[in-house]
């Protein structure tokens, strides 16, 4: 039945596609820039203040870290550092820099740049600064050797170094333009505006121009020390919504569209366009806050009951047309420790039993707010409306009030929201970030918010203990520990992942090398034209 509807739609838009592809501009000369249609939503281009999905694309193309995430999205490969060693207890890391590495102005990448970059990231106290948490000291015995000392064991440090926010900055150039790495960097650093017009890294591309809400333009780095990327000019064009992105793609105005949702993808039937669906590491979750105002009844059994009452597969079908995966714990599928975790299940019998055991078989009412957001193709309000229907089956009434995202972020802290939905995308490959954000360790983001800033005790001591061991472990041992932590997080029933939406990569057939990467979204240097 759906297919008949779909055929009808396709027939309807077929004419549009034909007309659109006949437009001038469909024939693309080789020297023309590659155009990516995307909603930019850039918060900054200063590597240490930026924190957004487009920032990941930008930073990973203009800057380079000591290491990089390999194409398998798991292992770490050398980049600016040719080799590195780690001491036994994961507190000291020693790197040897590549002697050939140079910045875009031709000057060599040296140990002092690494030291300066890490110290600025730590001292600037902005969104990505947490990546340098626990940094004790950095020594530079010579120009090409860096020794990083951490206060505590940190088995994920190498993984963090592959994150785009930790790319090495040309410290001389940055300092000339107002940047500083000193203790007072959070107030003394004046370089953010300069970074909006210039890049100072060693990556394959440099920043050409950035016009907010308009375009972000790259040009090839003339002094690039690696293999020159096939395409010299790349533009990310601001196109806010999925439909407009799809239209640009079909009319030949864009080569790649990055945020086409399944509904829109189903309307594209141009033979010139490739549509690929790949699993992503992003996920949408719901959370219960027993400490929030109006959430007092949400003790463990009730949370379990509500989680059993959710029709997970139905939610995936409803929000992303089936283009998504189930996810067990608030750690994305494929990250360390997630193998073999039990997937969430719908079980109305159990849900009713659990509620009855608390004398709540007649249900209760939750007044909740949800942010008006459409993330990774999922409309959060829409998702909540689906869950509203699910929970009505066990007599739980949900009153939904959609609010602006900023308002939601205030309310979640105070007075708290008993039940709501949110999203998460990884900053680097590693599971620690999830434990630090979702785990019921003292003072994590969700421990604070779910407990009503400490009104109820939700701290899970076992999780805390396992996490300390995980940070000091490596290899299989580390994976096992994260697996145990994930099991604890599932048992907590504070954070319940609902869907990991698939990513749709839509691009014109002549483009090659379009790939989704866990750290960097879309590696620009891998793109080429047939």
């Amino acid at each position, binding site marked *: 039945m759906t297919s008949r509807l779909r055929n009808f739609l396709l027939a309807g838009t077929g*004419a*549009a596609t034909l*007309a*659109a592809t*006949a*437009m001038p*501009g469909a024939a*693309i000369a080789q020297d*023309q*820039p590659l*155009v990516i*249609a995307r909603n930019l939503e850039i*918060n*900054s*281009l*200063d590597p240490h*203040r930026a*924190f957004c999905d487009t920032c990941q694309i930008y930073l990973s193309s203009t800057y380079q870290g000591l290491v990089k995430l390999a194409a398998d999205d798991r292992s770490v490969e050398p980049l600016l550092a040719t080799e590195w060693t780690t001491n036994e207890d994961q507190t000291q890391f020693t790197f040897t820099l590549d002697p050939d590495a140079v910045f875009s102005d031709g000057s060599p990448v040296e140990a002092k740049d690494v030291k300066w970059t890490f110290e600025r990231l730590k001292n*600037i*106290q*902005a*969104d990505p*600064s*947490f990546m340098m948490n626990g940094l004790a000291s950095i020594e530079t015995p010579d120009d090409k050797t860096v020794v990083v000392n951490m206060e505590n064991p940190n088995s994920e440090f190498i993984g963090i170094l592959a994150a785009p926010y930790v790319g090495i900055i040309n410290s001389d150039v940055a300092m000339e333009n107002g940047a500083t790495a000193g203790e007072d960097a*959070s*107030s003394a650093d004046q370089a*953010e*505006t300069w970074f*909006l017009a210039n890049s100072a890294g060693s990556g394959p591309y440099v920043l050409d121009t950035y*016009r*907010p*809400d*308009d*375009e972000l333009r790259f040009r090839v780095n003339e002094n690039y020390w690696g293999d020159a990327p096939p395409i010299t000019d790349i*533009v990310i*064009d*601001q*196109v*806010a919504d999925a439909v*407009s992105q799809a*239209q*640009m793609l079909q*009319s030949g*105005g*864009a080569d790649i569209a990055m945020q086409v949702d399944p509904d829109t993808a189903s309307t594209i039937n141009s033979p010139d366009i490739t549509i690929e669906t790949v699993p992503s590491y992003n996920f949408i979750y719901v959370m219960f806050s027993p400490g929030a105002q109006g959430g007092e009844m949400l003790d463990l059994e009730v949370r379990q009951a509500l989680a059993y009452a959710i029709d997970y597969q139905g939610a995936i079908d409803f929000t992303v047309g089936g283009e998504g995966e189930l996810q067990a714990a608030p750690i994305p599928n494929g990250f360390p420790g997630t193998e073999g975790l039990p997937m969430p299940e719908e079980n109305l019998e159990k849900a009713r039993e659990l509620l009855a055991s608390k004398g709540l078989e007649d249900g209760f009412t939750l007044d909740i707010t949800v942010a008006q957001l459409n993330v990774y193709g999922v409309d959060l309000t829409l998702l909540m409306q689906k869950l509203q229907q699910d929970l009505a089956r066990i007599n739980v009434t949900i009153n939904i009030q959609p609010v*602006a*995202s*900023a*308002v939601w*972020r*205030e309310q979640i*802290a105070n007075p708290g929201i008993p039940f709501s939905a949110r999203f998460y995308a990884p900053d680097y490959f590693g599971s620690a970030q999830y434990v630090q*954000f979702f785990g019921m360790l003292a*003072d994590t*983001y969700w421990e*604070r918010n779910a407990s009503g800033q400490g009104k109820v005790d939700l701290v899970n001591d076992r999780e805390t203990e396992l996490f300390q061991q995980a940070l000091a472990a490596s290899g299989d041992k580390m994976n096992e520990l994260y697996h145990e932590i994930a099991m604890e997080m599932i048992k907590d029933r504070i954070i319940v992942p609902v869907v990991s939406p698939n990513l749709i990569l839509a691009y014109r057939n002549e483009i090659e090398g379009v790939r989704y990467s866990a750290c960097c979204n879309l590696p620009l240097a891998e793109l080429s034209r047939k």
Partner: protein
Amino acid sequence: MSTYILRRLIAMPLLLLGVITVAFLLTYFTAADPLTSIIGERQMNNPAVVEAARERWGLDRSLPERYVIYLGNLLQGDMGTSFRTRQPVSQDLMVRLPATLELVIAAMILGTTFGVVLGVLAARFRDGPIDNIARFFALVGASAPVFWSGLLVLFIFSVQLGWLPGPGRIDSRAIAPPFLTGFYTIDTLAAGDWAGFRSVLMQLILPASVLGWTVTGIVSRMVRASMLDVLGQEYILAARAKGAGPLRVLIHHALRNAMLPTLTILGFSFAYLITGAILTETIFSWPGIGSYAVAAARGLDNPAIVGVTIVGGAAFLITNLLTDIAYALVDPRVKLSRQEGA
């Protein structure tokens, strides 16, 4: 007359100060903490990050302190830094103002030309079917929500027919002309970029038509009324008696005299165009003041909201002043009733 103009001129800076104060106060009392638009949610519980942001953006200061600092900076042309774009608000506005002006001027040209033609026709064929059709068309233009008519013309002319390009200011594959005036039509010509110029014109057609349509109605009604006024006057009758053809009379004598009141009405339609521009820019991804204002209001970008409101207010004040003066010059009777209000 001159005292009236003088009084209005003296009132200007005071009104401007009022505008600045109101805009500033409004953003101080926002429902949500502005920090939420500066810091990502993962760091909201991190005291060090929160503290650093408060200090950096001056949010730790008291209201009077911030107000005085803001006024002082404003005098030097500094409107603060946008939370969202992280660029000086004044710089953002400088880049975007020409985009909006280009759209509004194109809309005015299209809307006025069309309105004058409709008005002349309506006057010439008064009370006939053409008059009624012109009236209906004009009323629909003034009543249709531009955010819907914009979608509709995009769907029809861009998606279905493929005659005109989709949203944006210049073809996505073209490189924007080097900044000279910020008007892409002028800048592409100055750079000798004919393909670019053509692309810019094509991109302008749809949004300018949608926006221009909203003022067609006012203009055509005004032209029609003044034409009827003028057509009944003696010199027209005299011209006719001398044997001037009806078209010649219509264009040479009547229209010329009807233009002055029409020009003044354009000033009044500025408010329409501002409203329309904000919505049109949103539909057509036009990187102008309007879409900037919408993004700022949605994202609680306080410095940008204040900046854009002040600039909008100042533009509105100046246009109103010019219109009033022009109007007073054209029709001395207006002077008294306006003075009472002001």
